[in-house]
């Protein structure tokens, strides 16, 4: 089972421009459990485009926040637009003002610089996230993984 371990380290600047390195513990508390991801079309989608001689859209890189409060994984709508994806479903989302329907799209999530294998998911909900964040990794994908949030050591571990 491939394992990814990461210790967080944030450098901040004060008013005089002096750089200060936060502890691992404070760094993880500030950033949250984020990791680098790249989002692409699914392998099946890429094969069809290649068969047609069409150019496969390049993956989009950014940050994913591991969000245990999210019941479903969400991807930034600009990524879906860039990859020119067709929706595969629409689902109900709840929010403070009630409910809304949002579209889902098929994507492949890659974890560059880690031994974690790519995950293709045909139903990731689209919403507007703020760069550099492009993904909220929700409990649907976390159900495939072992995830350890080690606050005192400012470290996360993911295995799947």
């Amino acid at each position, binding site marked *: 089972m491939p394992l990814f371990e990461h210790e967080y380290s944030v450098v901040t600047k004060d008013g005089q421009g002096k750089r200060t390195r936060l502890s691992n513990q404070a760094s993880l*508390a*500030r950033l*949250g459990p984020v990791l680098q991801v790249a989002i692409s079309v*699914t392998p*099946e*989608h890429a094969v*069809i*485009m290649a068969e047609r001689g069409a150019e496969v859209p390049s993956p989009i890189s950014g940050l994913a*926040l591991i*969000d245990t*409060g*999210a*019941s*479903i994984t*969400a991807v930034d709508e600009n990524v879906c637009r860039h990859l020119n994806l*067709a*929706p*595969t*479903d*629409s*689902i*109900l*989302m*709840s*929010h*403070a003002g009630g*409910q809304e*329907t949002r*579209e889902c799209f*098929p994507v492949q999530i890659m974890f560059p610089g880690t031994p974690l294998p790519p995950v*293709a*998911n*045909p*139903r990731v*909900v689209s*919403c507007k*996230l*703020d760069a550099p*964040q492009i993904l*909220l990794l*929700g409990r649907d994908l976390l159900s495939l993984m072992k995830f350890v949030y080690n606050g005192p050591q400012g470290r996360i571990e993911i295995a799947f």
Partner: protein
Amino acid sequence: MALETEARYYNDHRSDFVKEHDGKFALIKGDRCMGFYDTSYTAYQAGVSQFGLEPFMIHEVVQEEPIHQLPAYYLGLTHASL
């Protein structure tokens, strides 16, 4: 919203689908159900092999539609700093 025809078809047939295929994933194109699959990914693979990159719907067959939650997103907390 895309997949309106598919969503309407699913809603019209939901009770029948639940009786026979509860917990499966339905692959729907237009006003036809093309099959039921154990996972959303196998349904997706079947959809791509039949329809290529045309839109089709993959929907989990359940008695009551789940209402999903993204509280950090809806509360604008995805960039919160402590």
